[in-house]
């Protein structure tokens, strides 16, 4: 029976604050500072969970988060780890993965069937007959997993911060504190972190009754807390080591992403279980777990105890039990007691029975330990014939340690087995990585302090670039602290290696027999070490078993890869705050106020179409069929541009100034067509391909001056194009300057027959055709704002693209809207622009082209001057591709008044049963009163004059009439003069 002790000198409890909570429907209380498990044990509740596979009763075994026996479920969270989660008032918890209740778990019978469930059994059966497998799979899936998820839970996010230091020391035990101090003394900026809410580690829970430890403990704790160069972060878990000493520290309020210049791992060792029948009964626990219960939480771990040991720590733990009022019935030493130091002498003086060369053959009890069976042990096997029983409700295991070296492995460190200490010790550490304390084999208090001092000094020297040969082994102990084979076989089995996965000794032995006889294959077939504690209490014994079965050494057997995270890390801490950079144009608020439906274009937001609430009827365009509100809005905008005036915000376009003597040469090399001969105040279409001839971007290049151009790029490729141009300057050694003005300049396109009439009175630029022809470029003032006007043809009407300072854009936009009212001006969005450009047969890079389309396929041979230009990026590829063009972009139309099933973009063209292309764009064209589109058509069909057949959703084949583009105003007359001159 476990119970609460009187106040302990170093306890973590605040006894003034009682916290009540609920577990499995029963009321419990604990103190502030308790963990959930310690509060339960303090109230006598030793049964904490059920094992994953056999649903065996489980209690505290490590109390160090190295096992998941105590795994709880709340209404807010799954998989709560009782051992280390602080108790809070009002918690309501249940066990995980139980069928019924913790006390009465109906799945317990699986344990009795274990003889029929050998290692990897699920690979051996359930697969035939094939039809039945889904049923079996449902049964297995139902049994899988631990906690349960409520898919209605809301999102939680914790902020993350960045941290910086010279030296990060992980683990604030004796050696960690000493290392931090000796480094801080040399002026280093040190962060000392520990996953526990209090610093001290084993200096507290293991050496609390060591007289000489007390002054050292006070000195070290005070020194690190108050040293100007040391930031102490308790309750922060080092999640893992990442490239260049990047170590995320998980704290109560979120993750600090710590960038260090060097890291000292003073993470200590993980106590390993002995393996004997029923070694998983509640009441059987690590000696360090019992010490933590007493020292940290003032919980008495049991009434009558036995200590199974193979080191001096076991005797010290026995003394701690006596001091806490536990009746210690016996100390069973798997070796001889003479090298166990003063603590063994003290135990003998107290008349406590010491059984040398003995081991525990079996533990007995239903839901908790009631009796242990001991027997003589020759270092490898027990003699059952000489077994005898000892009544006990507590069995402490102190048979050995595994290094908490996960972060060393992740950083690329190598460990090797030391047969003196019978423990894996650091052998080779990468630059900037250091280890000290029990992880490095320094076990006595003096050794830990000396090793901490050594590591701190070494780190300081390393950071000052002074080379110093590392004497890693200087302070290591000379006696073994672990037993090489703490494993006792038993015909009845149930001797667990991995408590998470319910793996018995025979499971590993059998896995090796079946050919899974290297550490990685054994892990994957048996799943040893694949559970939530990731092998912390299982891998060392697993390696020992495999080494024994295959007759290889520990080092030859190797170990599996240690991967982040050291403990599972909450997604809410990993995800952090939600950063979604959003880039708005100068007219953003106006768009919202005027009914714009916004769409995302990269980081930008742009109007897709406008639906002002004031809109009532809509001029139903003949032949369009019944249109949605959205389609009606888009049609309105298209008609406005075609018949009156439209204004679109194109601020998201890339805008790049290109200046210098080699400006022309840069553009000639970067774009397919020659740019260096564009006449002053004129523009040219600029098509960019990559080295394999694939179209990557297009825009307009304007000649501003002899040595100056102004180049635009598509919204989605603006950054990439600026980057490409700047790289070419470096690669080709050109004397050119680039300035990216995408954000500083806004841009709007005023398009429609009345464009010139609206602009003329507002600008000092002579808009006459002679002075300012189609594709012209002019600088001047508009509404007293310095602007650039470009006569672009994208939407196929008389139009002026106005580029102006972002600060004055809204004012000019307002003026144009006000003054344009008499011409029926409307704002139009991306969707209307898509229809307008389609009527002109213009492509959209990324829609009509894909990741492999070259200019010939896009039906733009005119943009590839293979003869007239000596060189441009991609030219040799295009020369090869010209002759092998397998498909090209072609225009098509549906008959007027077509009312059948509508083809959609990416529907396939079918020619005599085979795929012969696809529709890339399709839309209703109000100007032509019919559906029009572009299709990428395979060559044989494109060359023929056959109708295209497109397969629509219903599977029917719809004929499409091929036709030349542009569909509308083929000669482009509308783009050149006012409406009045064009009948």
């Amino acid at each position, binding site marked *: 029976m476990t119970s609460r002790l009187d106040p302990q000198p170093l306890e973590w409890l605040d006894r003034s604050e009682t916290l009540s909570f609920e577990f499995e429907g029963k009321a419990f209380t604990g103190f502030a500072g308790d963990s959930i498990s310690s509060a339960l044990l303090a109230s006598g509740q030793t049964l904490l969970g059920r094992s994953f596979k056999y649903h065996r009763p489980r209690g505290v075994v490590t109390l160090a988060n190295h096992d998941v026996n105590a795994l709880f479920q709340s209404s807010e969270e*799954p*998989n709560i780890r009782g051992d280390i989660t602080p108790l809070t008032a009002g918690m309501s918890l249940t066990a995980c993965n139980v069928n019924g209740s913790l006390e009465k778990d109906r799945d317990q019978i699986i344990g009795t*069937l274990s*003889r*029929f469930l*050998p290692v990897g059994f699920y*690979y*051996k059966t359930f*697969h*035939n007959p*094939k039809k039945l*497998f889904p049923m079996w*799979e449902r049964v297995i899936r*139902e049994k899988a*997993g631990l906690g*349960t*998820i409520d*898919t*209605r*839970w809301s*999102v939680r996010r914790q902020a*993350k911060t960045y941290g910086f230091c010279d030296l990060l020391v992980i683990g604030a035990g004796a050696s960690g504190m000493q290392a931090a101090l000796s480094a801080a003394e040399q002026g280093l900026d040190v962060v000392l972190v520990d996953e526990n809410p209090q610093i001290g580690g084993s200096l507290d829970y293991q050496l609390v009754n060591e007289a000489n430890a007390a002054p050292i403990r006070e000195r070290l704790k005070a020194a690190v807390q108050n040293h100007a160069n040391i930031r102490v972060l308790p309750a922060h878990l080092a999640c*893992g080591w*990442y490239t260049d000493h990047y170590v*995320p520290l998980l704290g109560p309020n979120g993750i600090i992403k710590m960038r260090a210049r060097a890291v000292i791992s003073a993470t200590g060792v993980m106590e390993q279980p002995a393996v004997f029948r029923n070694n998983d009964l509640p009441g059987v626990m690590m000696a360090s777990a019992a010490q933590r219960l007493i020292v940290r939480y003032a919980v008495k771990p049991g009434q009558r105890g036995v200590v199974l040991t193979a080191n001096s720590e076991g005797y010290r733990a026995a003394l701690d039990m006596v001091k806490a009022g536990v009746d210690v019935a016996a100390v069973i030493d798997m070796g001889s007691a003479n090298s166990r130091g003063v603590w063994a002498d003290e135990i003998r003086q107290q008349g406590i029975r010491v059984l040398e060369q003995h081991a525990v053959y079996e533990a007995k009890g239903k839901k908790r330990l009631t009796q242990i069976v001991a027997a003589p042990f020759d270092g490898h096997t027990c003699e059952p014939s000489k077994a005898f029983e000892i009544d006990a409700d507590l069995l402490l295991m102190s048979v050995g340690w595994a290094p908490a070296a996960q972060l060393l492995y*992740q950083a690329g460190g190598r460990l090797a087995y030391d047969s003196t200490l019978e423990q894996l010790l650091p052998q080779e550490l990468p630059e900037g990585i250091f280890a000290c304390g029990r992880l490095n084999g320094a076990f006595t208090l003096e050794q830990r302090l000396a090793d901490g001092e050594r590591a701190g000094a070494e780190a300081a020297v390393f950071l000052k670039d002074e080379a110093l040969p590392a004497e890693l082994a200087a302070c290591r102990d000379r006696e073994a602290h672990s037993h090489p084979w703490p494993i006792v076989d038993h015909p009845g089995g149930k001797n667990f290696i991995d408590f998470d996965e319910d793996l018995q000794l*025979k499971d590993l*032995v*059998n896995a090796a027999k*079946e*050919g*899974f006889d290297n550490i990685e*294959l054994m892990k*994957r077939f048996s799943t040893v070490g694949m559970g*939530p504690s990731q092998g912390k209490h299982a891998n060392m014994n697993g390696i020992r078993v495999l080494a024994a079965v295959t007759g290889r050494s520990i080092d030859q057997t190797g170990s599996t890869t240690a991967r*982040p*995270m050291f403990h599972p*890390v*909450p*997604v*809410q801490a*990993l*995800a952090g705050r*939600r950063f979604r950079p959003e880039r708005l144009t100068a007219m953003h608020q106006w768009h919202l106020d005027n009914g714009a439906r916004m769409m*995302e274009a990269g980081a930008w937001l742009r109007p897709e179409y406008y639906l002002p609430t004031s809109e009532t009827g809509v001029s139903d365009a003949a032949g369009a069929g019944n249109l949605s509100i959205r389609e009606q809005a888009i049609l309105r905008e298209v008609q406005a541009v075609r018949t009156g005036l439209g204004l679109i915000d194109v601020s998201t376009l890339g805008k790049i100034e290109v200046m210098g003597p080699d400006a022309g040469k840069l553009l000639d090399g970067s774009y397919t067509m020659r740019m260096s001969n564009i006449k002053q105040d004129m523009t040219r279409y600029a098509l960019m391909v990559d080295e*394999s001839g694939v179209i990557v971007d297009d825009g307009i290049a304007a000649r501003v001056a002899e040595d100056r151009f102004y180049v635009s790029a598509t919204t989605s490729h603006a950054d990439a194009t600026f980057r490409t141009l700047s790289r070419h300057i470096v690669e080709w050694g050109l004397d050119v300057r680039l300035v990216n003005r995408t954000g500083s300049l806004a841009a709007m396109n005023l398009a429609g027959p009345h464009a010139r009439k609206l602009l003329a009175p507002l600008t000092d630029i002579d808009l006459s055709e002679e002075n300012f022809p189609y594709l012209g470029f002019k600088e001047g003032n508009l509404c007293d704002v310095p602007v650039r006007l470009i006569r672009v043809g994208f939407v196929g009407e008389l139009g002026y693209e106005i580029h102006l300072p972002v600060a004055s854009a809204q004012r000019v936009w307002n003026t144009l809207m006000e003054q344009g009212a008499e011409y029926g001006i409307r704002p139009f969005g991306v969707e209307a622009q898509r229809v307008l450009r389609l009527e002109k047969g213009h492509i959209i890079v*990324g*829609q009509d082209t894909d*990741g492999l*389309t070259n200019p010939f396929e896009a039906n733009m041979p005119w943009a590839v001057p293979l003869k007239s230009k000596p060189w441009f990026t991609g030219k040799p*590829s295009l020369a090869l591709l010209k002759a*092998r063009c397998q498909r090209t972009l072609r225009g098509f139309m549906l008959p007027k008044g077509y009312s059948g099933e509508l083809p*959609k*973009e*990416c*529907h*396939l063209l079918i020619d005599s049963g085979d*795929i012969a292309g*696809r529709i890339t764009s399709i839309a209703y064209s109000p100007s032509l009163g019919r559906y029009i589109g572009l299709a990428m058509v395979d060559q044989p069909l494109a060359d023929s004059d056959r109708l295209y057949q497109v*397969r629509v959703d219903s599977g029917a084949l719809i004929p499409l009439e091929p036709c030349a583009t542009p569909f509308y105003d083929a000669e482009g007359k509308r783009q050149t003069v006012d409406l009045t001159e064009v009948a």
Partner: protein
Amino acid sequence: MPWRLLKYGLKSSHNEPRFFPEAKPLKPHYDVVIIGGGGHGMACAYYLAKEHGITNVAVLEQGYIGGGNTGRNTTIVRSNYLTPEGVKFYDTSLKLFEDLSDDFDLNIFYSTRGHFTLAHTDSALRTMRWRAEVNKHHGIESEVVDRDFIAKEVPYMDLDCAGTHPVMGALYHAPGAVARHDAVAWGYARGAYNRGVEIHQKTRVTAIRTQGDKVTGVETDRGFVSCNKVVSMVAGSTPRITSMLGLETPIEIFPLQACVSEPVKPFMDTIVVSGSLHVYVSQSSRGEMVMGASMDPSVLHSTRSSFNFVEGLTDQMIDLFPFMSRMKVMRQWAGMSDITPDFAPIMGKTPIDGFYLDAGWGTWGFKATPVSGKTLAWTLANDRNHELIEPFRLSRFTDFELVGEKGAASVGH
């Protein structure tokens, strides 16, 4: 209770037959040497023995069976690719997968779950329709579905993605499945071993011997082995092997990372992938959420994990599945993706006589395990590229006849 487990339970000792051979010395000569003991290598050995009677074969694995990308991938099996060549190839693979458990008499937990590729933009939706149409043309169950369909099938997904990039629709591929990746390699390995093929782990190829332009054998860290047919099936290590022969390829190696959550009671029975959010997720038979994203942006020959990977993944994931913010990430790892310019593999004969390639597997290698083994075995037996893999020949780059998988930049998982 399946009677095999009953029979096993009643026996006293555990005398299940070995899956793989005990370590043995290398023979001086083999007819075929397969470099790489992952799923592809074992499948090739299996089909060489089973379908072509070629058993004097050695599989040389530098690490352990299935230790490369075979053990590191998303375990997704699907065939809703973009190009006709890709669709035919992967669909053949999917059909083979469906009978593997019976062929091996080993349960590879092949579980048809349905596969969603989410579209968050118009252009993404267009790409989905393109793939759906090509898939349907080749008789593959694949269709564009709308928000309502998704909401019905995956009710716990936030289709509005916390307000940015709302889901507009998805490509739904009902036959999409998952399988235990290790078991596929073990099944093929046991099948090959039982038919006389030798499997050598911890055997690293250090050089490939040639005479003129003809392969004569391979050097390993356990001695020389003569053979006149060598096939490289090493995925992430391909450039190291091809450079031994001075054979240039377009392959570059990028880390592809993944992670798993702590196991919870299974609630997600389908596979969800989002191209624009670069995330994918499915729940394993052990109850862990298997999650991943796109490749690292720069070349690296390492399986190291990075923290910004798991940050970006979780940040985007909980926009789709808010409740998953209450879970914990347990472990993260990485594989090495061998990427090609057109996101399609490089298979079959090479300019060097007797040297064959099975590479360029990027993020789509696991699902091709059966068909790549089968077609490479046929190619080795006939010294001629199997018709299914002819479009993936190495020479396609010289001829500028790239496969169009990258067309829609539809790198999925």
